[in-house]
């Protein structure tokens, strides 16, 4: 189910009112700390209509991708917190309070977030402008993101090149500044094609987002062996099943050398081990693979 414009306007109105009544509190936003009491909350945003902003072309399949992910998690009992598309997808929803963003209401208020749209190595892009400090308009620049300080564990940024490491700088972009309790970011190191998984063009297709959930939740038991897929392995398999070989998938995660724990080795809650939040990681790990 989608929030409509009225819902978003209500939130805005409520925030304005709260700001007026409690201005001193808002000058230094109080972060609730790691909220892992409920590990099963999901939120997605996607953009297909870019209104020609900066000349970005429209996309066709991001809604099916993100909502497939959202609905499939909902089917297995996850709490569906928000599904904002096109003009309702706002950059502020992913931005930290220090740049006047309100990720603590949206992206950092769920455990698993998913964005599908345009991307560049520095940012992922929106079709409308909702940036409350007036810098880096229409996008979430990496310097505006700090995730996991409240709730977020995993995020997919399904967009071209966001996790590109051509200049060996992925850690200084989406790594050190961004990981504040976050376990992993999943995305692409190169371009990706805007397409679903075609079964019979143009009538029958499958959502790659739904397939991602299917991988994470499938348990194969062949006595005495059990095969289940971690979130990272599920994303890798999904990208291989979805994109052609000239595309490279990628993931960036926290790494604990003492235990060899990598954030992408987490399983979906209820399906296996979930590592601890590391608020200020001293080591990170990045992987890229051919789709």
């Amino acid at each position, binding site marked *: 189910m989608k929030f409509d414009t009225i819902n978003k306007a209500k939130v805005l109105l409520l925030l304005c009112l709260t700001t007026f009544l409690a201005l001193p509190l808002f000058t230094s936003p109080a972060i609730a700390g790691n909220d892992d009491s409920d590990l099963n909350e999901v939120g997605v945003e996607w953009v297909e209509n870019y209104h020609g902003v900066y000349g970005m*072309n*429209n996309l066709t399949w991001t809604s099916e991708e993100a909502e497939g992910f959202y609905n499939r998690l909902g089917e297995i009992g996850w709490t569906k917190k928000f599904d904002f598309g096109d003009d309702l997808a706002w950059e502020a929803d992913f931005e930290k309070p220090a740049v006047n963003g309100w990720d603590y209401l949206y992206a950092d208020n769920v455990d698993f977030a998913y964005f599908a749209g345009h991307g560049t190595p520095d940012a992922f892009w929106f079709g409308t402008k909702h940036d409350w400090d007036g810098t880096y308009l229409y996008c979430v620049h990496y310097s505006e993101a700090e995730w996991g300080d409240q709730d977020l564990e995993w995020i997919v940024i399904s967009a071209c090149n966001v996790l590109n490491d051509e200049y060996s700088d992925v850690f200084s972009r989406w790594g050190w500044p961004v990981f504040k309790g976050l376990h992993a970011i999943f995305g692409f190191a190169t371009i990706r094609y805007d397409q679903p998984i075609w079964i019979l063009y143009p009538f029958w297709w499958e959502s790659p987002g739904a397939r991602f959930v299917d991988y994470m939740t499938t348990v194969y038991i*062949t006595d005495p062996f059990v095969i289940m897929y971690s979130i990272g392995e599920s994303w890798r398999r999904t990208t291989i099943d979805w994109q052609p*070989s000239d595309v490279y998938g990628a993931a960036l995660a926290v790494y604990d050398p003492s235990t060899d724990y990598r954030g992408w080795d987490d399983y979906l809650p209820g399906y296996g081990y979930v590592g601890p939040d590391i608020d200020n990681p001293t080591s990170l790990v990045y992987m890229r693979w*051919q789709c």
Partner: protein
Amino acid sequence: MKAKTISKVVIALSLALLLALLANSLRPASGEVVVIEATPSNIPSKVAVLEVILAELTKEQASDIALSIFGVRGEAQKIRGGWMIVEGSKEVRLYRTGGVEFFDNYKMSKGCLTPQKLPATDECVRIAKELLKKLEAHGLVPKGLEMTFAELANDTIVFAFKNGTRKTFLNNIHVNFALSYNGIPIWGPGAKARVYIGEGGEVVGFIGRFWEVRSAGEVSILRPEEAVQKLKELGYGRSVPREMVSKVIVKSIELVYYAPPPDVEPTQLVPFYVVKGVLVGKDGRIFDFAQAVPAIRS
């Protein structure tokens, strides 16, 4: 006389307007110049749509193949579109569409913090071809498709530490083979024939999307230039400011068959164009683009 002059002016203006509108309709909306550097010359006006032939394996056959080719011992169990056999962290999948997959999940995804002893490239190709021979001996390599060596690639893992240290390792080397039908490449997620080679030359993964197909009749397809025109409408798939694009250079237009992953059991594989090139910005920056455009004429 005066009325005649006015009507002539009106007609001339109307013609000019009409010509301007016509010229505008032939130009991309954003005004960028589109240069097609490479137009394939041998594109037919019609190509076959490929019917996918499903092959049924018995449970016993599936278990035998897993053991004899990949050394994975276990009882086959039904999965979407085929069979799966599991032993430890290893799994083999055999699909009705002809797909074969093998993964040692631990070795494929874990990577390590020490350099792996990976074989030289020639040796990787030899190991891969040997595996394909084994598959062929079991009748698992498709008869309707051509398969040729394409390239070597790798998966990479990078560790970074706050003190500035950065360590990069190859997770595996993989040998890719290209699939085609009557010279037209199979493309997409279901176009993979790939052998993953790990420590000491061990095969740690294999993807063989081995479609058994036959022609289901011919369809009319777009000419390559029409595909480029369609691409202009769809956009170039890059978030480069369109008003900043001064030139689009189409480097390649390739007619392909789109193939999905094998478990979804498509009834047909249909033609697409894959258009690749660069966008040249007004500031001189150059961006690659690649887009798939449906080729069947509607």
